[in-house]
């Protein structure tokens, strides 16, 4: 293993059209790849740094639950909400976390259909992140209703008033969109993980591990008759998740777009929200993955090439988001509606101008540095810029939600929103919950999709015999050779 790690620094970002792209460097073969990925989970006792990180994250998470308890006991008055700003950090955080949850399914579904082989190294991690982000997101609409004990009225269940939910309300569409997205993402993630859980089961040395992994591995035995249906199911799930991933943030944007608040009532919202979601999701994948590949010695599996490709996606989606910001201003001017025009002048130059310009610098300006290959291939620069993107995307939601509400049609009803410490601790706590789940995932589950990575790994000694890789992604039929 030591010899493999020393080769971790191989640069596979050179664009040489005469050679196939090396997705896995470091001279891994099937055996050493399995050893490497399983070794992280099988290692006796977690590293001290892991315990420190877990302690910190879980303390934050507990703080969030304490804040939620305080909220339920006292009511939403403990938040900084006022009239006219009835949607504050609760909704900002919800949209922020749902957006982050977009990268995983994009990588696992859309990039799968597009046969982007590089996705195999990062899809497990990104899918896990998706699920954790959606969990964090789901908390906020759940608690912002005030009377949380009647939150089940959101679901089409018979209640004692003999009333049903109103299906013409975008808020209800949201329940179905986020619920479906969470369910399908979970099915996708788990289905993809079963063969790897079977690997861990077969390598297990302790009884607990054998039973725990064995239970969830469902008795998978690598049968090709099973693989046949499994792959078909995976393809179908990818096909289903592709429109789904585009629909979730579209529906979230309907919450705003179907209202009549100036700054919300625009048709650009669905595509603009989806681009922003992918942008923020990829930034969060990078934020988690860059330290993880460093600490766990995964630099030849999650290579510089992978990081560079993700940086390009961030650049593309960041530019789309910048274009959307400009379009909003153009339409406000071109549409000729004074309330709309005021809303946008107020965004950029009103009392919340600081928030608007933080958003623009983080989201529009900082990713433009990714035009430079030197920056795209420097993990430290990537990490810093991605953190900026995360900050910028949170502010985007703040700008949309709070600024629009704080000053609408009637100047006598204007207000200024300030969060309370409860707001802040709840938001910080949601990061605690997210990172607690990420840390537990890295410790107990295979964070690299081994079975998938093996399909894009041409093993050295085959090249003498057969000049093509064995995987499923290559489109040639060896039966014909």
């Amino acid at each position, binding site marked *: 293993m030591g010899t493999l790690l020393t080769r971790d620094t191989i640069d596979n970002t050179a664009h040489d059209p005469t050679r196939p792209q090396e997705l896995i460097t470091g001279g891994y073969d099937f055996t050493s790849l399995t050893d490497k990925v399983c070794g992280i989970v099988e290692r006796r006792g977690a590293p001290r740094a892991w315990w420190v990180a877990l302690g910190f994250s879980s303390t934050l998470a507990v703080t969030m639950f304490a804040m939620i308890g305080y909220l339920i006991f006292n009511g939403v008055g403990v938040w900084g909400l006022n009239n006219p700003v009835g949607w504050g950090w609760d909704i900002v955080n919800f949209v922020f976390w749902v957006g982050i949850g977009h990268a995983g399914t994009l990588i696992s579904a859309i990039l799968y259909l597009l046969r982007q082989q590089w996705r195999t190294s990062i899809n497990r991690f990104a899918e896990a992140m998706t699920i954790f982000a959606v969990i964090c997101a789901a908390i906020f609409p759940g608690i912002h209703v005030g009377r949380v004990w009647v939150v089940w009225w959101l679901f*089409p269940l018979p209640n004692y008033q003999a009333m049903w939910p109103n299906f*013409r309300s975008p808020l209800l569409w949201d329940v*179905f969109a986020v619920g*479906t997205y969470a369910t399908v993402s979970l099915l996708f993630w788990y289905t993809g993980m079963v*063969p790897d859980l079977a690997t861990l089961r077969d390598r297990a040395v302790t009884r607990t591990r054998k039973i725990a992994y064995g239970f969830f591995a469902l008795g998978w035995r*690598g049968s090709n008759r099973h693989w046949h*249906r499994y792959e078909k199911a995976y393809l179908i799930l990818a096909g289903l998740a592709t429109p*789904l991933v585009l629909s979730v943030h579209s529906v979230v944007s309907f919450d705003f777009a179907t209202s009549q608040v100036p700054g919300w009532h625009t048709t650009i919202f669905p595509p603009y929200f989806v681009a922003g979601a992918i942008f923020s999701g990829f930034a969060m994948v990078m934020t988690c993955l860059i330290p993880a590949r460093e600490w766990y010695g995964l630099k030849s599996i999650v290579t510089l090439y992978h990081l560079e490709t993700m940086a390009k996606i961030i650049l593309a989606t960041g530019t789309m988001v910048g274009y959307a910001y400009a379009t909003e201003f153009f339409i406000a001017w071109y549409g000729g509606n004074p309330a709309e025009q005021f809303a946008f002048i107020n965004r950029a130059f009103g009392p919340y101008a600081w928030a608007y310009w933080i958003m623009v610098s983080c989201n529009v300006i900082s990713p433009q540095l990714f035009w430079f290959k030197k920056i795209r291939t420097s993990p430290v620069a990537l990490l810093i810029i991605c953190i900026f993107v995360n900050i910028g995307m949170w502010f985007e939601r703040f700008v949309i939600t709070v600024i629009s509400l704080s000053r609408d049609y009637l100047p006598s009803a204007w207000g200024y929103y300030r969060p309370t410490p409860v707001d802040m601790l709840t938001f910080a706590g949601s990061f605690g919950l997210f990172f607690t789940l990420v840390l537990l995932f890295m410790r107990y589950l295979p964070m690299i999709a081994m079975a998938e990575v093996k399909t894009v790994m041409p093993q050295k000694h085959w090249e003498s015999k057969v000049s093509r890789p064995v995987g499923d992604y*290559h489109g040639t039929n060896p039966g014909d050779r």
Partner: protein
Amino acid sequence: MATRATHGLYGYLAEFREPWDLIDAAAKVRDAGYTRWDCHTPFPLHGLDHAMGIRGTRLPWLVLCGGLTGLTAALLMQWWMNAHDYPYLISGKPLFGLPAVVPVTFELTVLLSALTTFFAMWGLNLLPQHHHPLFNSERFRRATSDRFFISIEARDPLFQGERTREFLAGLGADAVEPVED
């Protein structure tokens, strides 16, 4: 392992080191006419379905049924709840209008399709099945890691004990071993 009498024989297990050898061998097992046999690989091997002669699965048709069920149920539910059982008149809008019901209909179509895909796939594969005779083989533990296997069951009509073993060995297997039931 391998302590009971041979009447408890599940079948023979052949191990291969290289995926290409497995695909060649699988085609020969198929051509020999065996029916109760399988290949076991750590990852889906392209071309193996063809080499084994596996027919397409009916999974997509089941998913279509699931999706259509979701679609119909969503439309009926929204019509029944908002237009029939407890009519909501909101802003003079129609009690049941297609544009307003599209999002939930789409989501439930996808949800039911995905749930069908998931459960039908495991159901057709007869999983979960936590006990299987192949797990009696110590060698077989590498089937989920870095080795490739062919198993021929003793229940196969063409199965002939020692001759099947020789047949498997002749396919270029690195090792052939009996597996107890």
